């Protein structure tokens, strides 16, 4: 088996690093913890699914524990919510596209929000 070297250990050791490097890392983490606390799934179920996805991702290339880790986290949550009937792939794509449109049509500096027409669907 490939034996990758450890990612910038000495650089990371002892230094303050932010809990989350990107806002969306914090958001997807909070969303998952919140849904677990609301009883939508057990943490054991989450760990089982997440570790499976990490193994799949890690089979392609060694994960560095940063962005790729949270990409796997997001993919796990999307699949879980889809299987649970809480958010289908079509719904996610629709809402994602609506947010993209909102960003691309909101003047720079103004708060970005979804159009009322979409929210009323």
């Amino acid at each position, binding site marked *: 088996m490939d034996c990758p070297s450890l990612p910038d250990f000495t650089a990371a050791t002892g230094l303050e690093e932010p809990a989350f490097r990107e806002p969306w890392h914090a958001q997807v983490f909070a969303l998952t913890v919140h849904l677990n606390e*609301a009883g939508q799934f057990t943490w054991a179920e989450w760990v089982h699914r997440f570790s499976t996805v990490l193994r799949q991702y890690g089979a392609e290339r060694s994960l560095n524990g940063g962005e790729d880790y949270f990409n796997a986290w997001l993919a796990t949550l999307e699949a879980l919510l889809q299987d649970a009937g809480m958010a289908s792939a079509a719904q996610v794509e629709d809402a994602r596209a609506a947010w993209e449109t909102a*960003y691309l*049509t909101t003047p720079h500096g103004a708060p970005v929000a979804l159009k009322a027409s979409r929210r009323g669907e």
Partner: protein
Amino acid sequence: MLNKWWTERARLRQHRFMPHDHSDHPHALLPPEPALRVKALETILRDKGLIDPAALEEIIDTYQNKIGPQNGARVVAKAWLDDGFRAALMQDATSVVRDLGFYGRQGEHMVVVENTPDRHNMVVCTLCSCYPWPLLGIPPGWYKSDAYRARAVREPRKVLAEFGMTLPDSTAVRVWDSTAEVRYLVLPMRPEGTEGMDEDALAALVTRDSMIGTGLAHVPKGAAT
């Protein structure tokens, strides 16, 4: 689904990575693709009444600002000072740390493993990244990396050496694999030259890595080593 995701990423990448001049930018900057997907999930779940936005904010604030290795350091310092506390901690860490206000939101059990001259403990999660959140906060990137997760069990001494730690041959290394249900905290050895120090001073010597087992507690400045 993943293929579609990456195709979307590629489609958007060109736009997103174009040089941006903020002064005359016509529209808001598009967040990265995964960020849009997280926003999409939030929108759907909020519309269905399945999430409370205020609760999300509270969770982010807690893990970003309130929980961190200082919690674990407090526990370690207390254990160094008070044999009764240490005995109780070794016996039932979950209850003891809960009494200090540190409890696992996922209902997990805490287990404290004590370093001695004969045995050094280190913690990993080979499955994913199970970690004693209430005591240490969010794990560092390296703890989540494939390299650490795979190698900590297979060649712990080599991994420790990469952290700058060389243990005597007479010290056994025990690796603890965390799970969804059980999270481990290493109780590092109290450094020499700390006699008479109070809890605050001792807690300041306890590093995050020393509580994962990939480091040692700091020796106070001026102490003979």
